[in-house]
């Protein structure tokens, strides 16, 4: 049976990347069942692009604005009609055999989600973190390493939002994609994966389904890995664990402890920057030493995010119950 695939691209004010993304989708060896773009941009540039150059693409609107990626995903998912719904980022460009490779593992009926590899153009990424691709560790942390290439299909715990797909029926049975992951929106893709895994589904990483991820700049404010990012990373992670596994699960407690332990790195970094001499023996400028404690603001961002995650999780769980989404 040849399963049909709907491709959903969510975007916010990056029409130049959407154009390239759609051009690559046009070069696929097998055509997808449909392509859906969900646009949350404050302007009409993406709408204009699609209307003029890609009339076969379905354009949907998310009026909630920036920082609502999960809501955009749900809008796309709710409209998609393919057996499989694949999500790619607007700055992720597919290889010609991406769709065929992504579809193959679904021949196994236990498989409910398939993620592909994202090549970021970083030297050595093919082998970096080979043993820790897409895992939920016992201390509650999630590993990424989706640029690594294990050379074969492997089971994972979660998938990368830039290149992931799900069996539509399995995700629909859980109530679809959940929102309430604000900010730079980390964790919403993991939420989908962990819920499916919790229900006994199998998720696999298919390295042959490749996208080239060019990591476009954020258009909704901030930079990658800035303090805002660190805050939301911790906050949303707490929300994720509490929503998927509940308050009593030890993962949540262990994650909080892991986060606190991890802050030692910043203290060491500050001590290092405070030293009068550099490792090569040269003298460190006085101003550099004076500003050494600034690095601790990163720890502050992380710990504040951790603390903020608990009330946020309480609210999110109440909303889930009200919406009957599991």
């Amino acid at each position, binding site marked *: 049976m040849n399963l049909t695939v709907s491709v959903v691209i969510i975007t916010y004010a990056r029409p130049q990347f959407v154009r390239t993304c759609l051009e690559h989708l046009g070069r696929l060896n097998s055509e997808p069942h449909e392509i859906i773009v969900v646009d949350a941009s404050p302007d009409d540039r993406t709408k204009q692009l699609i209307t003029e150059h890609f009339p076969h693409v379905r354009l949907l609107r998310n009026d909630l604005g920036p920082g609502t990626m999960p809501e955009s995903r749900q809008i796309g998912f709710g409209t998609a009609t393919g057996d499989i719904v694949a999500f790619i980022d607007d700055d992720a460009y597919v290889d010609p055999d991406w769709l065929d490779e992504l579809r193959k593992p679904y021949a196994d009926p236990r498989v409910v989600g398939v993620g592909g590899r994202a090549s970021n153009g970083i030297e050595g990424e093919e082998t970096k973190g*080979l043993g*820790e691709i897409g*895992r939920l*560790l*016992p201390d509650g942390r999630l590993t990424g390493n989706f640029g690594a290439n294990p050379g*074969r299909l*492997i*089971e994972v715990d979660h998938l990368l939002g830039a290149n992931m797909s799900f069996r539509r029926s399995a995700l629909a049975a859980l109530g679809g994609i959940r929102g309430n992951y604000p900010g730079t929106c980390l964790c919403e893709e993991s939420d989908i994966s962990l819920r499916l895994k919790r229900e006994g589904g199998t998720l696999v990483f298919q390295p042959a389904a490749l996208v080239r991820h060019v990591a476009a700049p954020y258009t909704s404010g901030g930079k990658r890995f800035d303090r805002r990012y660190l805050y939301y990373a911790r906050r949303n992670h707490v929300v994720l664990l509490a929503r998927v596994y509940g308050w009593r699960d030890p993962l949540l407690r262990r994650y909080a402890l892991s986060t606190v332990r991890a802050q030692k790195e910043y203290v060491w970094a500050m001590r290092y920057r405070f030293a009068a001499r550099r490792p090569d023996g040269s003298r460190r400028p006085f101003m550099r030493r004076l500003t050494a404690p600034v690095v601790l603001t990163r720890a502050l961002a992380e710990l504040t995010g951790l603390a903020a995650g608990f009330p946020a999780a309480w609210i999110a769980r109440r909303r889930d119950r009200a919406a009957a989404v599991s």
Partner: protein
Amino acid sequence: MRVSAYILVGDPNHLRESVSSYYDHVDRIVLSYDETRTSWTGTPLPVDECLATIRELDRDGKCVDVPGRFARLDENPLDNDTFQRQNALDAASDGADWVIQLDTDEVMLDPAQFFASLRRADATGMSAMDYPARWLYAQVAPGRYLEASTRFWRPSASFPGPLAVRAGTRLRHARQTDTLLYRVDMRPWNTDPHHPRDAPVHEMIPPERAVLHYSWVRDHETIRRKFGWSGHAAHYSLPIVYQRWASRQRHPLRTVLTNPLRRRDWYRLVSVPENADMK
């Protein structure tokens, strides 16, 4: 998933419990021993006694003899260790996906858990599985042991090398290999002081499901002989090693309570079900 095992035959202590713990879960067991019944350091080994025990419990005919010449006295004993293991591993790899490398003084407390972890390691594409072994130092009373721990008496795993490797693996040193490791531990964070603090832990199991390593759980005469045949004989044969062991066995409570005062060699007192009660 086809699983084989290999055994280095030569130590009768806990041999029966060790092999029985996983016998039903493997397809084949390779028995590796020196043809001259000699250890890596040239001392005699009770190989025939061990073989007789194995023949008794091999009800399905899974065990295969693969003797060889491993007592190369001009070589370092640990190199002989690696050489014999590699030879056995190559023989066990034939027709298998994974090979268990458990010593005969190591007993799986919960084989179902061990093989469930191995299936996860296989599914996630790993090449070897580190599984925690609880290192028993001495028996102090029936069912009571001194076990290696952290300074403040928390369980501490030891990983002498992966206890399961993919067929065809090349060993670097004894059981150790340079390959992708699936690491199971007894806490969410690494508990082995010989590994980096941030060594990843992929799966956590309770201590009751670990492997028990009856490493130095012997009577006085046997422990002295073990110090002679071990690959670590050069260190173990120092008089202080035996003196400490004997003293700690005689004064277990003092040994445990003085943990915080020592820089290493920390222990806790544990009860372990007698062999008949093991799963």
